[in-house]
């Protein structure tokens, strides 16, 4: 009974939020710069603070902001959950795959030296790919968690 009351209040508040022009327009303006900042943090991690974990969280926050303001259904239309699940696994596969590629080329697991023409370029390629895998997994896990929590009780109401 109490649960239903809370859900009803929540729905009313959500409806108010979805129709608020300030939130809608500022989300549309902010969406691209947040993702751009995420990509900067991802690929600039070699030179400044940042890396896969932080970048993944920042990119995920852009998608979560979109689902918060426009609703879960619109968020799922923008970023379908089956693609989300595939990318969630792909990040770990990329990380492990880099390790296996270096193994197949004749070095140890996750030894990047052999990946490039010189040891340094090999390290660069390895770190870039590994960080990309981390970012992919983290961002998709965060989006999936938010979607799971936010659409948890929806079926009961219908």
């Amino acid at each position, binding site marked *: 009974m*109490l*649960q239903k009351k*809370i*859900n009803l209040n*929540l729905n009313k508040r959500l409806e108010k939020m979805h129709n608020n022009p300030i939130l809608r327009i500022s989300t549309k303006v902010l969406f691209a710069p947040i993702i751009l900042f995420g990509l900067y*943090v991802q690929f600039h*991690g*070699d*030179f*400044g*603070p*940042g*890396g896969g*974990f*932080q970048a993944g*969280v*920042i990119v*995920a*926050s852009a998608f*979560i902001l979109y689902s*918060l303001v426009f609703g879960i259904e619109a968020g799922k239309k923008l970023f379908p959950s089956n693609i989300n*699940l595939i990318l*969630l*696994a792909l*990040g*770990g596969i990329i*990380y*492990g795959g880099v*390790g296996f590629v270096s193994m197949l080329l004749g070095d140890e697991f*996750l030894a*990047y030296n052999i990946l490039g023409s010189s*040891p*340094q370029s090999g*390290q*660069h390629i*390895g*770190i870039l790919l*590994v*960080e990309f*895998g*981390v970012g992919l*997994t*983290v961002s*998709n*896990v*965060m989006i*999936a*968690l*938010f979607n*799971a*929590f*936010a*659409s*948890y*009780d929806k*079926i*009961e109401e*219908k």
Partner: protein
Amino acid sequence: MISELLINAFLVTIMLSIAIALIKTRTVIFTVILTSAYSLVAALMFITLDAVDVAFTEASVGAGISTILFLAAMAYLPKKEEESIRSEFIPALSCIILGGILIWCSYDLPEIGQLTAPIHQHIAPEYIKGSKEDIGIPNIVTSVLASYRGYDTFGETIVVFTAGVAVLALLEKKNAAKKNKSQPKQKIRKNA
């Protein structure tokens, strides 16, 4: 030196007051927001220690995304926490004793940034030298995280993946069960 002391004292005071407010509050939304504020102050403290990468992680993960996830989960919780009936004397006493021991031990720690400290003698010099020569990356944190300690980061990624899949499995299973339960009800309604 004095300015550093002032900044640290300021941050510790804010942290302490947030912690006391956290103990006192019984409203769930305040708990979530205060936890987020605590993370943000912790991030500022990491900046004063020159640990920019850690501060960045704390600000984005601790203060950002975990607050959003807590808020998303909060919709299914009652709005207020129940008052505890047990006496708070023994927990308080054990906290004070443990805190006292920790403060007492902290006098034996080497000073922050001291080069002769054991932690800076073990493998850190090799990493600092190797990051430039072997890996060619200016950010030592990234080279340690992704290359020297690649196994650990692989483990961390798998942990994040496993946690996400476990939560999804739990919630999706319940969702599917509810779907099956609610379908016959709808049919009855249509017939009526």
